[in-house]
């Protein structure tokens, strides 16, 4: 008798993966599992077809491109998964009445389906602000980045004092309730407190009721003033928390907040997300990758990386380099610069003459690199 070759075990292959996921090389993520968290919240577990490892900071988000009703819609979702389990990522989405994307995800996305994503991006993470003691404050769906942070600390087992105070509408709306209770039971340095606005149909809430107040907070976490505080939730919630902390004399330099609402994102994150959305749009071929070129500014001796789909001016702006510019559409020529070496693809609107182009000049506002560049600026 000969043994039949063992069938490849996909999970084993996934765990054996060693190459990091590179969204620029492969932005297609396959939905592996869909989990019900509450009556209107689901978690979607995603990974590339080829097993890869995800590296990110807990609190970061991905920008997705969904094909819904023949239309491409972009959304940013914070990862609820922890980078300590790098073989897949997860987003946790609450159904929003009338929301085209959340409803589509809940009703349509199933294991085996593919979505496209770029990232991770965002600066909102406990990893950016190391501290011995944390307070994680979340309201509603704002729980996702907090969960990613809590899971990360829990998984690595470092002694870290984390207090997690979550505000939910009712007991039935507490996302990750079981897992939070489990982590608290297993780890004495992790404490969780939930504030509910109301009871739910089948449960009377025994904990603090109403909205989060300073008294509730003091009672739950008496030493909150000594902690690094992360806040995420709807804008009214975050505004209330901010006011509360100020009143309590908290050092606001140690207060960090992020909305899960795209419109409330900090500008830099918004830009990164918008750019990712653009990049997702621009990639017609599934395997298309965005090359990045080195741009050197000879006079100021600054060097930056400029993706081939980004204008040199935009890349410079993002890198904090100030270049003279005005119209940003190739009209006024204020950004006209000499290219000492390298080539660009330029779509100008009359702000430069062919003779100037022939002499090595370019308008940086409408020039995308096609090679490494040295700019006389």
């Amino acid at each position, binding site marked *: 008798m000969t043994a039949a070759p063992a069938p490849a075990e996909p999970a084993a292959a996934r765990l054996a993966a060693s190459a990091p996921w590179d969204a620029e090389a492969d932005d297609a993520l396959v939905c592996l599992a869909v989990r019900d968290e509450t009556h209107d919240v689901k978690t979607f577990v995603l990974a590339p077809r080829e097993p890869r490892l995800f590296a990110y900071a807990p609190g970061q988000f991905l920008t997705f491109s969904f094909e819904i009703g023949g239309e491409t819609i972009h959304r940013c979702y914070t990862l609820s998964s922890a980078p300590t389990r790098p073989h897949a990522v997860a987003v946790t989405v609450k159904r929003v009445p009338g929301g085209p994307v959340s409803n589509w995800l809940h009703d349509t996305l199933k294991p085996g389906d593919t979505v496209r994503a770029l990232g991770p991006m965002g600066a909102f993470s406990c990893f950016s602000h190391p501290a011995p003691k944390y307070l994680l404050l979340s309201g509603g769906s704002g729980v996702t980045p907090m969960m990613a942070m809590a899971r990360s600390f829990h998984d690595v087992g470092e002694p870290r004092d984390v207090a997690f105070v979550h505000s939910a509408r009712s007991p039935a709306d507490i996302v990750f309730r079981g897992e939070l209770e489990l982590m608290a039971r297993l780890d004495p340095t992790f404490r969780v407190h939930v504030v509910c606005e109301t009871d739910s149909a089948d449960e009377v809430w025994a904990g603090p009721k109403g909205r989060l107040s300073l008294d509730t907070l003091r009672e739950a976490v008496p030493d909150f003033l000594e902690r690094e505080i992360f806040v995420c939730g709807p804008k009214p919630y975050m505004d209330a928390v901010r006011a509360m902390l100020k009143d309590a004399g908290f050092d606001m330099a140690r207060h960090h907040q992020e909305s899960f609402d795209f419109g409330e994102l900090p500008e830099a994150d918004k830009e990164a997300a918008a750019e990712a959305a653009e990049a997702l749009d621009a990639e017609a071929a599934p395997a298309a990758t965005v090359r990045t070129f080195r741009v050197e500014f000879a006079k100021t001796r600054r060097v930056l990386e400029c993706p081939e789909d980004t204008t040199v001016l935009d890349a410079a702006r993002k890198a904090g380099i100030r270049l003279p510019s*005005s*119209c940003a559409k190739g*009209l*006024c*020529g*204020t950004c*006209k610069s000499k290219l000492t070496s390298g080539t660009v693809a330029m779509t*100008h609107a*009359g*702000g*430069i*003459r062919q*003779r*100037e182009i022939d002499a090595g000049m370019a308008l940086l506002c409408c020039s995308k690199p096609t090679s490494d560049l040295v700019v006389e600026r």
Partner: protein
Amino acid sequence: MLDVTPTPLQRLLRERRPGYTLAAPFYLSPDVFEADMEVIFGRHWIYVGVEPDVPEAGDVMVVDIGKTSVAIVRGDDDQIRAFHNLCRHRGARLVHEEKSTVGNLVCRYHSWTYDLTGNLIHAEHMGPDFERGCHGLKPVHIRSLAGLLFICLADEPPADFDAMAARLGPYIEPHNVRNTKVAFQKDIIEPGNWKLTMENNRECYHCGANHPELTVPLFAYGFGFAPEEMDEHDRANAERYGCLLKTRHGEWEAEGLPSREIDELDTMITGFRTERLPLDGEGESHTLDTKAACRKLLGTFTNAKLGGLSVWTQPNSWHHFLGDHIVTFSVLPLDAGRSLLRTKWLVHEDAVEGVDYDLANLTGVWEATNDQDSELVGICQQGVASPAYEPGPYSPHTEMLVEKFCNWYVGRMTAHLGR
């Protein structure tokens, strides 16, 4: 009877004695200078350059006439336009170099951007009610006479430009100004009133004593002489010149080259004069060996022995069109006692310096002559400032054109200021 008190300038104009130089204030007074800028340079066609100054789309040339700066631009439609050289935002000077090439015209102060037809196409932060259409560049009248550019700062320029162009154009066109390039330009500031610069140009009475280079190719006889005073040698030369002129004019006219004199120096608002004059020696060009300075001839010429077509326009230009090159002069007043003389040497656009022409040879005669004239204008300016100065008589044989210049000037000033 009207009881009108004339201004000092009106009185000066009224008292000007025909056939005599102008009274001292015409050369010295800041008030007269201001009136000159307003009336003569503000309301007449002023020669400022040539089409090859702005050969390609996007080329810009700036010319300053007194306090007015004008940008002359060739657009993408190949049309040449002129605009007041200031931004409609805060009035900043728009173009700063005499010659430049632009995509659009952009004010460096706040990046207001105008296309080459003068429309404002970009202005940030001006709010939704801002009307770009009302803030285009202010146009200046500009005309090309066979490639020579004239601008007029007045709202309504003299209407006889076309009449001049119709008669002068055929003389100039064979030299094909548009297919030339500016091989060299020289600006010199003459230490004298602009009228002294012009008067000096309008006679060759001084040539024999002062222009050893120019009189190699140029017959001074071409600008008048008094035969009864000449010795036998001079008379023989003058007769030889007279015969040459007659023969040559016949030949050139037969070849389709208009040559005979037209003189409207003081009979038109846009006064002018032209005549094609034979040259001495080889008869080809204004060079020290009287041969062509440039191997590539102008237009469709195959023979350089075409003499020199002289063109004068009132109030500020003169030109020599030769078979191989063109020398063109414009005078722009700076103040009562200083004038900018701008000279351009044009050769065929395909001619290569060092191969088809030698720049020193091309420019030698007129560089020397201009320097000599500048000195002469300077000593005249010094002299008229003396309390002992009184207007002196012009020669009826060699200074007729000077008298016509002054007559035109007095006539135009009087027409605008009244008696």
